[in-house]
């Protein structure tokens, strides 16, 4: 009888341990971000690059193939980060996003100001030493999120439609 009770207790503990072990999604988000942010150290700048301009101004002045330093809030669409690649869009801080009182679940899509976004948005691509796009999510790599204010230093890439893409070498997270 005693053996049966011991067996039952062991089974119960094993069952509870199994149930606890099922909680695979319990890693604290903060820790995940910190560790992921560490792997993006090659791009993260502790000090802000000098001569940064807002995105709208950079779109006017940046020359294809030349260095550019610009800053803006991560956003411009409901999902500003590219899944599976270190790329995202930033919007000039002068463009206001939906105020909190409107209760918009994704204020970073600037849904109320899409017309202004058009001329005040740039795409940021994190590239490695060979100039190749990094195949990791920028959100995890840099520890940033939507509406983070970032300063980006890199090389400008322009097309005939006036779009601005920055091949980023350094990213400083202002807030």
């Amino acid at each position, binding site marked *: 009888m005693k053996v049966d009770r011991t067996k039952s207790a062991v089974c119960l503990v094993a069952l509870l341990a199994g149930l606890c072990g099922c909680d695979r999604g319990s890693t604290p988000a903060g820790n995940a971000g910190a560790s992921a942010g560490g792997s993006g150290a090659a791009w993260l700048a502790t000090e802000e690059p000098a001569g940064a301009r807002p995105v709208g101004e950079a779109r006017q002045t940046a020359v294809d193939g030349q260095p550019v330093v610009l800053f803006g809030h991560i956003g*411009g*669409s*409901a*999902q*500003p980060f*590219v*899944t*599976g*690649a270190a*790329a*995202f*869009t930033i919007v000039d801080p002068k463009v206001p996003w939906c105020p909190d009182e409107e209760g918009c679940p994704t204020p970073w899509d600037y849904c109320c100001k*899409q017309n202004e976004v*058009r001329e005040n*948005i740039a*795409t940021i*691509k994190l590239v490695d030493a060979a100039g190749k*796009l990094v*195949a990791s999510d920028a959100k995890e790599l840099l520890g940033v999120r939507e509406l983070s204010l970032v300063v980006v230093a890199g090389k400008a890439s322009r*097309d005939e*439609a*006036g*779009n601005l*893409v920055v091949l980023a070498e350094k990213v400083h997270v202002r807030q």
Partner: protein
Amino acid sequence: MIWHRWLPWDYGVRNLLRRPVRTALTLAAMVIVVFLVLVVVGFIRGLERSLAISGDPEAVLVHALTAGENLETSAIPAQTPALLAASLTGIRRWGNQPAISPELFLGTRIQTGGAVEGMGGLIKSEPEALAENADSNIDSRPRNSASASGSQEFAVLSAQGMGLVRGVTGAAPLVRRGLRLVEGRWPDAGEVLVGRLTATKLGCEESQLDVGQTIRFEQREWKIAGRFAAGEAAFEAEIWCRLEDFQAALKRQDLSLVALLADSPGSAAEVELFCKQRTDLELVAVSEAAYYASLQKFYRPIRMLAWVVVALVSGAGMFAGMNLMYGAVAGRVREIATLRAIGFRRRAILLGLLQEGLLLAALGTLIAGAIALYVLNGSSIRFTMGAFAMRLDGPAMLAGCGAGLTLGLLGTLPPAVRALRMPVVTGLKSA
């Protein structure tokens, strides 16, 4: 050594048969409760399955940035497919054909239920006759009227419902890999394909959408050339026609979306990146699986409400069962006291009563399950995005069986415990 013995198994079975009316009433209550639980869980599982399987993980949808999750409001330039084909390298190809499907998608009023003489492509029926019919949802009166020229007669299309129409090209099956033509053929000019669940979406008879029948939308009549299935995906409730015909009917030159198949996860990122870089085009790319997953959040309140209904129905059933069992046990106080007096332990009697409750619950669950499988499983339900089939799969049946057996257990336990607490002498004296 009677105090070590359990009550015989058939004692509980015979007890159930001793009071057939009470047993039948309890059984009926159990069947109704479990059936209602299965209805609600089957509804939830069907909805979840429809949204889950609609999204091909390798398919990417490119639509207008401003459209959000509503593809019907999306409008993108007609040259977008060519631009994507020229700019992207990671699009899957079938032979020389890239898997890029330009599509025009719209919810519109569809009229069904009649045939038009002399159908041979895009023949217009009498506008006045249809205008009369436009305000009524169902008009079953068969009417004939002469056309303006007086040369043709029309059987007025009688039923009307909101349907989803997708204008596609021959490339659509390259991307929508679950598509199966189950009857008829691919549509020619002025013809359409209807899905397996289109009749449910439109709220009309299946026979009104038979191959060869005629339906009407966007001021044109369309002959049904075939019927398709799509593995229970949301498309099954749609009507498909040729893109150029639909553009002409809508007087539109643009598209709603471009669906394409990426040849690797990296290629899907390439499409997304292309749309982000070309901010002037105001396009957005989203994987089809992510799109349908995002739609699930709109149905979260419905699902939560459904689970609340499951809880309420189960709770109500439990109280009803408990009430019946209180009555059943109350009438057996003397019998229980006698069993205790001759030496059966409380535990043995409790187990006997639980056995009776569980037997009844198991029988009720089996009957409800059988009825539900026969009546409900696969039956289609209309919802905003189309239609889906109720699905009584393993988890749904498990939920139903679990609810039924829990009812039997929890419904029996309190009255049985109460009866066993009564002193033997009091029990023996009771009437």
